[in-house]
Every structure is written in structure tokens, then in C-alpha cells.
């Protein structure tokens, strides 16, 4: 842990000097990041390394936030940053707390990256297909220490991997928590599905039944539930706490955000503001129970709980965001889901989703789909999209699959902050939905 020798009590004492009012929110956020990438075959700089560390000091008061960030962890820089965010000019200079940080490991290395492209290639060939494809694999590591004037939570660390496959006919990216045989097999299956669907014609636009696989469900509910229930998003339309109690989805839908239940490697006990994470019921029985909030939004209402504050970078203020979405399984087996969906579409994966936060208009982009006939999966069709208004679309869920799987991990970009998000989801059946192409 790089921050185990940080004099956090001294930092806390220094921070307390700029918290002039009882309701002031003050914290210091220290981070170190290391990314190592094995570039695609044939490119220069086969191994690419990025190492960075720095901190941000923040003061929030009455809806206003001041933040100062630096790309080094040094006492003088810390005192300067404090001066920048302090609202009252101190007659004396701010103290410079000792900021002892453990240096990074000697030569950067990531042995586990080296064999993964070959493992992926083997897993692709196991499907009896062959096509030129290049893989880039990257390990992402982050260490975080948050210090407040009264609260010093423990340090946090995250490690995960991103892998991108590029072929002449398309591109596929995935986030993984381990680079093992199972990860290679799962990713290869998705790549092969895309390859096989590359020339399939898009379906004619229709309104009907669609069964979404766990990966597509994760993207759907990330956009339509998690983003929609972020306190800052809700505030665009009025008071965020007014959302609590609203029936937003079918009664069969239970959706939680639980960073503590995320896959090993990205599991968190505290958020990027140092608040303890909570098992947050976003929807219980389809009804909004607890929107996503960070410390700042939690100050505005007793109904909003902190614990979902995330930062894409030390240079930007934190915001309420989902980390690990969990959709509770229902009772329908895969056979049940398909049996009631004759002449519909099975949508296994989504390439991306988007939500117009004000109108609630939602679009889920699907790289391919399968037709459902006589309770089974039939021919593949090409790219299409699922569209609707959140309030309407989520009420059209008629069955929830009985098996929730880790699915739909991906990058989420909002407000210039790109973050990894994770999910565990079952399949869903929706009726009367609009699919276009």
C-alpha cells in the first residue's frame, strides 16, 4: 500500500483549519495509478507503462465546491492547494504535513498479460473459425486514501484488466477481473458471435417480445436505472428525494448497487470520498427506494445516503455514480423466458446504451440478435437497437431469469469522467418493446 506511511492525523489536522463552518465538507484524496499495456502485435512499444500519483483537496459549502489538485504528493504542494481552496485567507501559512509515500515497485512488470493474447487466440480457434485479430491487454491498478478532518477511512485498492480485440470486421472490448482460462473462453465466445453475425442483415423494425441476455440487461439497467437515479441527474428535473417511492419498473424488478459485492479485485468498503459503501436498493419491487448519492448530495436531504461518490480523476470533483449493479434473479428458467417469446428477438449483448436524462428517452445498441422460434434460438440477425422511454420500458418486464451472472462490465463515461462499472444480472423478458435498425 503506497499510503500506509502517510501521516493521516497530521493531514486531518491541517484540513480542519479550512473547515470554518460545521456543515463544511472538506477532504483530501490521495491516489496512485499504474497501468501496463501489452500493445497489439506489430506495434512499437510492446509494453507501455503509465504511473501517476497526486492528490486533491476539496472544500464544499452551500452547494459550491472548490478543488485544487496536484500531480505530486509533496508537503509544499499540499499547503498551496489548501490555500487555493480555503475561503478565508489565513494570516499564517498552512502547515506542511509530512507526506511520506512508499515508492512504486522497481521495474514495472505484468507477467500475466504476456500469455493472454495467445490464450484468447486459442479460445477463438476452438470455435473452428479463423480470422486475423489483434489484441491489446491492459492492467489497471489504483490505490486510494481519503482523509477528512474527522474521518480517516482505510486505504482502498483496485486491480482489473481491459482487453480490446480488433479485426477488419469490427472491434470488441471487455473488462475483466482475472486473466484466466475462463475469461479467455467467455471473451472468445463473444468475439466469435460478433464474427458470425458480421454480415447478417438487420431485422425489420418491429414492436414485440425481446429476451435480453444478462450482458444486455446490465447495460440496460445501468443506463435506465443507475444513471436515471443519480442524485445530480434527478436534480435536473427537480428535487432528487421526490423520486423516492415512485413506481419506475415492473414489480418483479429488484435492482441494487453494492460496491462491497463487486468481483474480487474491484470490491470496495468505502467510496472515493471515504464514506462507507451501502447495499443500496435502487428499486425494490420496481419502486425507487434509494437514489445514488455522494456526500454533497446527502447534505441536501436526510433521505439521501452517501457512499456512492466516485472520482474518475483527482482533477475533477467526485459525483454520485454506480459501481456494481446487482439485479436479483427471478423464477423463470431460460426455457420459460424463450417459450413465451415466440417470433421475438433474443438480445445477448449490448455494445452501448444512452439515456436522455431529461426526456427519459433511452436507446440500447445491439451488435446482433437471434430470432426466437418455437422456444429456441433461430437465425442470427444484424445490428439493431431497443428504444423507449425509461418509465414505459421498465414496466414491460414480464419475467426475470432465475440465474444471475457476472455480466456487462464496461466503461461508463459521464461528465468527462470515465470509470469501470460492474454488474451481476439475470436475463429478462420484455413485451411490447420497440426494436429498430
Amino acid at each position, binding site marked *: 500500500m503506497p499510503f500506509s506511511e502517510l501521516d493521516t492525523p497530521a493531514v486531518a489536522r491541517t484540513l480542519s483549519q479550512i473547515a470554518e463552518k460545521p456543515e463544511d465538507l472538506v477532504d483530501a484524496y490521495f491516489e496512485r495509478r499504474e497501468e501496463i499495456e501489452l500493445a497489439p502485435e506489430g506495434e*512499437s512499444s*510492446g509494453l507501455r507503462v503509465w504511473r501517476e*500519483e497526486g492528490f486533491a483537496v476539496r472544500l464544499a459549502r452551500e452547494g459550491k465546491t472548490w478543488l485544487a489538485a*496536484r*500531480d505530486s504528493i509533496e508537503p509544499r504542494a499540499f499547503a498551496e492547494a489548501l490555500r*487555493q481552496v480555503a475561503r478565508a485567507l489565513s494570516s499564517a501559512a498552512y502547515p506542511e504535513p509530512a507526506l511520506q509515500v512508499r515508492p512504486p515497485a522497481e521495474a514495472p512488470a505484468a507477467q500475466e498479460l504476456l500469455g493472454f493474447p495467445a490464450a484468447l487466440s486459442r479460445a477463438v480457434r476452438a470455435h473452428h473459425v479463423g480470422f486475423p485479430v489483434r489484441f491489446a491487454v491492459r492492467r489497471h491498478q489504483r490505490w486510494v486514501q481519503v482523509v477528512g478532518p474527522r474521518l480517516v477511512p482505510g486505504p482502498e485498492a483496485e486491480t482489473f484488466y481491459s482487453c480490446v480485440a480488433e479485426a477488419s470486421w469490427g472491434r470488441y472490448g471487455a473488462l475483466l477481473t482475472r486473466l484466466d482460462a475462463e475469461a479467455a473462453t467467455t471473451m472468445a465466445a463473444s468475439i466469435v458471435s460478433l464474427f458470425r453475425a458480421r454480415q447478417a442483415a438487420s431485422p425489420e423494425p418491429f414492436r414485440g417480445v425481446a429476451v435480453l441476455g444478462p450482458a444486455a440487461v446490465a447495460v440496460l439497467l445501468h443506463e435506465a436505472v443507475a444513471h436515471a437515479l443519480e442524485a445530480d441527474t434527478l*436534480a435536473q428535473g427537480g428535487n432528487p428525494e421526490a423520486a423516492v417511492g415512485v413506481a419506475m419498473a415492473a414489480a418483479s424488478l429488484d435492482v441494487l448497487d453494492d460496491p462491497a459485492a463487486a468481483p474480487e479485485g474491484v470490491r470496495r468498503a468505502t467510496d472515493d470520498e471515504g464514506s462507507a459503501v451501502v447495499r443500496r436498493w435502487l428499486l425494490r419491487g420496481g419502486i425507487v427506494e434509494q437514489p445514488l448519492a455522494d456526500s454533497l448530495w446527502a447534505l441536501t436531504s436526510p433521505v439521501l445516503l452517501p457512499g456512492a461518490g466516485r472520482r474518475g480523476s483527482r482533477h475533477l*470533483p467526485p459525483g454520485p455514480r454506480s459501481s456494481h449493479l446487482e439485479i436479483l434473479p427471478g423464477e423463470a428458467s431460460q426455457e420459460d423466458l424463450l417459450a413465451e417469446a415466440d417470433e421475438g428477438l433474443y438480445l445477448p449483448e449490448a455494445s452501448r446504451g444512452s439515456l436522455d436524462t431529461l*426526456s427519459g428517452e433511452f436507446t440500447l445498441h445491439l451488435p446482433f440478435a437471434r430470432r426466437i422460434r418455437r422456444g429456441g434460438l433461430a437465425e442470427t440477425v444484424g445490428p439493431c437497437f431497443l428504444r423507449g422511454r425509461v418509465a414505459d420500458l421498465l414496466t414491460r418486464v414480464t419475467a426475470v431469469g432465475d440465474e444471475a451472472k457476472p455480466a456487462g462490465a464496461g466503461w461508463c463515461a459521464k461528465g468527462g469522467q470515465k470509470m469501470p462499472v460492474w454488474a451481476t444480472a439475470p436475463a429478462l423478458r420484455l413485451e411490447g418493446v420497440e426494436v429498430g435498425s
Partner: protein
Amino acid sequence: MTVSTIPDLDEILRSLLRRHLTEAEVFVKRGRSRRLELTAVTEASSTSQEKAWAVRAGHRKGSLFAAGTGDPTPGPWPDVTGRAVELPEPMAGAPWNPPSDFDTPLIGEREGLKLLESLGRELASELPRARLLRGVLEDGSSESELASSRGVRTRSRSRLSTLYLEAAGPGPAAPTATLYVAAREPRRFHPTALARRLADRLAVSAAGGPPERDTGEFLLAPPVAVRLLAGLLPLLVGPAAGFRVTSLRGRLGSDAVTLIDNGRLPGGAFESAVDGEGVPTREVVLVEEGIFRQPLLTWWQEGSHLGVSSGCVRRAGWRDIPNPGPTHFYLKPDPRTPVATLLGAVNQGYYLIDVTGPGRFDLAEDRFALPVCGFAVQAGRASAPVAGAWLCGGIAAFLRGVLGVGRDLAFQPLDGMIGSPSVLATGLELRARL
């Protein structure tokens, strides 16, 4: 403003040489920035000081890339793998003086917030009950230094401001619109003009609909023409571009089409004497009066049959590996033609003022589709608002169908800064759906 103290780059180069990494380059960057964000209920002011470096090095059998914050240290370095890296020799460029506005201080907190607040007010006055949902103003300056084992040694500075706006129109089912613009410093952002652009888009989105399918003369405002040019870029960048363009057969465009890239465009947001590898920048004409002259080429792609190279290897930030691409790529305007003249020339057609989402470009099939909004035009006058429509056509047909260009050149930050004046074109189609 002077270049701040930067560590001894030769020491780093020597440490790389000791590891037999004979091709080596060290890049260091220092930056300061201010970011102001305003929403209906929150206000945030951030200041950042950035200090970082990047190293590319290698030998005949492989190379490495390492980057980090703070001052560069002489190792430890990651393993050398992959392909060898090639670095440029020092090259002489034309004389260039840094623009005076590089020295202007960053915008202050109050001034920046006032700019965002005034945008909200102007928007509400242009379109009653319209509101600014979110405004983000970023203003930064940086200095960088680059040294290589080939003897390249350059210092450069940059100054860039960006403004992102999200707005909603009146009414319960309010349409929304976003705008992202860049300039060298924030005092160049004009709240009234920006608010008017947002208001126009919100107003046509609320009132307009798409025609089922229609053709005619199309006047494309700069935001629309810029997106079409950005979609065409793969046809013009790199040595394979000549082949791709040849596949379009004959002339690339009409006489009105002259396409230029210029890394030192006076007043340009990325104006600089050198590119991300320390190679001097200059103006290159890629298409002249409709005739393809040459693709955009880097120093390692130069060949007598292809054309001349320019400093066009961009380094967007210290984390990024230098990559070829345009800096200020634009369609040359006609200083004699006001937009009103072009609009007056539209007998039956459309004046498309903005793009409302991502477009689809299929260069292999020579077709594109872009979601747009604007007005139907009859005899030079707007007759009805248009929204939710797709502008469709062939890439070659669009370039050959350009009848005239205006004088209102405007740039947008996309893949580099892409610029265009208003364009009057035929051979396109407007559709309600794809």
C-alpha cells in the same frame, strides 16, 4: 510567462543509452488549468497543476513507452518488446513567433462563472423558459520540452479553452441540446452567439419534424459541414489515402472544394511551431479546387510519389503515444460570399443548422448518414422547422455537389480542430428514417 524549470533531459537520455536504447526521446510537460462547472443547483471551481513526462525508447529489436507524473527519473524502465521505434532527425522550420495571447492569464473564478451565468441568461432571452442544465468551462496553459537521441530539442507552449454546454428547451417534454467548442482563450467565447445557436436548435427540435424523403439544395451550416469533413478524414490521412481517393474515381470535389491542414494556423486552438515529435508544422494543401493533391503525411511516410510531409504527429497529452492526424483541417472559405447569398440561392431545399447525434460513415460503400435539424427553405426563405431527420448521401457525390462556400469559417474540436464555412450543396437527401 516563461518556460518553468524542467529537469535535465540529457541525464534521462544517457540512462537510456546505458541500456543500449539508442533511439530515445524524452518529453516533459508542465500545465496549469482552471475548470468551472455550473448547474442549476451546484457550482464547482477546480484548479490543477500538472507535471508529467513520457519516454519512448528502443533498439533494433524492440521498444518501450513509459509515462508518469512528477519529474522523469533515470529508470527503472519496463522491458523492451514489440517493434522498434523510429524517431525523426532535427528539421528546420519556418520562423514562428508565439502568439501574444499565450501569455494571457487563466480566467479567474468570478469571470468564468459570470461567463457561464451570462450564457444562461442569454439563452433564456433568446428562447423564453429555455435553461442551461450544465456549463463547463476549462482553461489551461502548458509548456513542454522534448529531447531525443537524434538531436531533436524543442520547447513549445500551448493555450486552450473549451466550453461544454447542455441546455433544455421549454415545456415538459423539453428537447435538449449540447454544444462543445474550443478556442485559445475563453474571452473568445461569445455568450450571445453561443446561446443563439443553442436556442435555434432547441426551437427547431421542439417544433420541427422530418420530411419523409426529399432532395433539393442544401445549405449546411458550419457545424454540419464540419461533421461531414471529419467523417471524410480517413480518405485523406496516411499513405493509403491516395489509393482510397483514387477508388472514388475522377475529381474528388467541385471547384469550390479546397481542403487544407495547417498545424500553425494563425489563431488556431492548437497553433504550434512543432508537432508532438518536434517536427516543424506547416500548411499542406490536400485538395485544391477539387483536385486531390496529396494525403496528410508524416516524416516517415514521405515519398516523392505521395507528396511532402508536415509535422502532423499529435501528442494530445503526456499519456498519449504520438499518432498521425490533422491539427487544423479545414475547407477553405470564400471571403466574398456571405451566408445570406448562399441562402438566397436555395430555391427549394433545406438550411441545416446543426447535428443532433453521432453520424454513420461507410467509406467503403461511399455513403453516410447524419442526424440533423434546421429549416425547409423555399425561394431563399425558411418555410418550416425540420428535426429528427437524417442527411444521407454519398461522400463523392457530396464533394462534387458543392456549389459554393461561405466566408464564415468556424472550427470544432473533433479529431483535431476541423473547420468549415457554410456549404451549399446538391446531390444529398433528407430522410425521416434510415
